[in-house]
């Protein structure tokens, strides 16, 4: 009975921990499929953690806080797209700048608004929603079907993104832009518009992930609280081989690693905490190097496109 409870608890916390990463990874996936690499996911998520807390604090509504974060995320996406698509700036360098910007901006703004105070938004936290009947499934019912709505939303987005990418005309167009923008251009697709849209939507998803991290999981903002989740999301996209389902599974695996790592010190495990936290990154390198079969990234990913 105890084992079942622990496992159930682990699964439940895994899903919660996975949610911000999954949202970030889905955002990155959409961008990637359109031919854009965004190293700056970490920075965007970090800004969103702050904006969500501030938004929630002032509106007294955690959902409005999340909307604020997503709007700011969308604006950052617009800037990213302007620089990398219109001005054809190096995507990697812009991404790095976004990370620095995110770290600086979130702290500066927090200090401006709240000084050194600790602000908690616990009073407005997301409420858990149970899904009737399913919730009563033994073992997993409670873990899977008694969660915060954002968790459901994030996992629901997986089939939605998958359907969008592979079953809709717009998804096909988006993939063609990521594979061969020149060809897409000759077929009358506005490559720039497509990449702008993918970037803005993608960054909004990343911001949603950041917002859930602060308002959903920890009810507050702390400096650098994303703690590399943006990079784990990046890893998950590659480890998941650029497919939504794969990305979801990778996220759950990585989040599970995080959950286990957090558990280790309390059970006096001989396996060092730091080694467990390294796993996602090492696994990603292993996959990238093709040790586990070839992954094919979108052919034009990271390359600026210049209209004729």
């Amino acid at each position, binding site marked *: 009975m105890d084992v079942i409870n622990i496992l159930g608890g682990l699964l439940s916390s895994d899903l919660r921990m996975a949610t911000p990463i999954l949202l970030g990874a889905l955002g990155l996936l959409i961008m990637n499929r359109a031919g854009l690499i965004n190293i700056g996911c970490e920075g965007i998520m970090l800004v969103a953690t702050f904006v969500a807390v501030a938004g929630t604090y002032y509106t007294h509504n955690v959902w409005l806080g999340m909307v604020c974060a997503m709007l700011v995320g969308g604006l950052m996406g617009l800037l990213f797209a302007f620089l990398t698509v219109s*001005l054809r700036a190096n995507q990697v360098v812009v991404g790095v*700048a976004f990370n620095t910007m995110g770290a600086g901006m979130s702290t500066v703004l927090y*200090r401006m608004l709240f000084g050194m105070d600790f602000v908690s938004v616990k009073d407005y936290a997301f409420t858990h929603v149970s899904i009737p009947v399913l919730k009563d499934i033994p073992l997993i019912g409670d873990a899977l079907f008694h969660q915060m709505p954002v968790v459901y939303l994030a996992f629901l987005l997986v089939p939605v993104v998958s359907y969008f990418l592979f079953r809709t005309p717009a998804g096909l167009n988006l993939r063609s832009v990521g594979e061969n923008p020149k060809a897409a251009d000759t077929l009358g697709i506005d490559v720039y518009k497509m990449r702008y849209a993918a970037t803005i939507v993608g960054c909004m998803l990343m911001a949603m992930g950041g917002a859930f991290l602060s308002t959903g999981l920890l009810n507050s903002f702390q400096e650098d609280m994303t703690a590399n989740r943006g990079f784990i999301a990046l890893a998950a996209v590659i480890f998941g081989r650029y497919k939504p389902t794969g990305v979801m599974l990778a996220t759950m695996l990585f989040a599970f690693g995080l959950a286990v790592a957090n558990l280790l010190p309390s059970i006096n495990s001989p396996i060092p905490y730091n080694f467990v936290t390294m796993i996602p990154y090492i696994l990603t390198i292993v996959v990238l190097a093709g040790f586990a079969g070839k992954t094919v990234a979108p052919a034009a990913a990271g390359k600026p496109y210049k209209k004729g």
Partner: protein
Amino acid sequence: MQKFDKIKFRNNMSTAARQAIISILAVAAALAISMIIIAAMGVDPGRAMSKMLSGALGNKNAVAETLVKMTPLLFTGISYALANRCGLTNIGMEGQLYMGALFATISGVYLPGLPLAIHLPLTMLAGFVGGGIWGWIVGVLKVRFGASEIITTVMLNTVAIQLVQFMVNGPITEPPGNDAQSSPLLDSARLPIILKNTRAHLGILIALLFVYLFWMFLWSSKKGYEIRVSGQNPDAALYSGINTKRNVVLVMLLAGGVAGLAGATEVMGVQGRLFPTVSPGYGFDGIAVALIGANTPLGIVAGAFLFGILRAGGNSMQRATGVPVAIIKVIQAIVILMVVATAILREVNLRRKKPEAKKA
């Protein structure tokens, strides 16, 4: 100087001048935007800037602090520029820096009885090797397995940071192990102070020496020529029989090593022991330094000087005006964005130039 001849000066004269102007414009624009942000915080931006400047250059101590902050930035700036000249994007300097710091610490703490003349260079070398290994892995993964260095370096950053955390909490923690830090380095592995009663240490001179070596290597050596050809046109490199793969591994090893020196000098010159957070992001700042400096030696020195001022003056600005020191990260980010945004100017300029030249 004779060896350089006039070629590099004339060679890049017009492009260099243009790049310098673009960089200066970018920095000016970034500072303007930052001042607007500071003003929005209700602080007089002029006062904030002057506090920052006096904190960075106002007296001997301030200047020394700027030199201290410049040192790792020079190393990471060179590291990024070197890899970039070979067509590689090294985002992994932060991790390479951590590995350099780790190796230097091990050498500096656990090799007693050596005279300074041996221990000091040996410890520097250890730092170079630590970072070099971290870069070498990236090179091998790219050449042998086709793994993009952009992603592997990002991943290896975290791995290195986690590894350092593990080491200072376990294997090399200072007995009895209450704090997450290593034992202090032996005196024979400490970089001497070069300005009395300040923290300015020999590292800045070593860093400047490496700027010179970077210059010599790329523009006056055959290997450096090969690397520049590989970076500018990989097909031409293959055509002339240059072993581009071996060069990628070599360059990543060297770039990693130089970034490792940033970590080594931090430990040996400033912190005296290894802490789990050796670097506040010097590895990433190096990208900005190299960008502003357009991967040129003098440009890197200028870029490192600028960011050194920001880092050194940021604290006194916070003390005097209450503007959080994190603002310097914002300024840095805006500088990077401005530089990449204005890069398009360079292209436009070239295009405009072409038709006239064709007639010639």
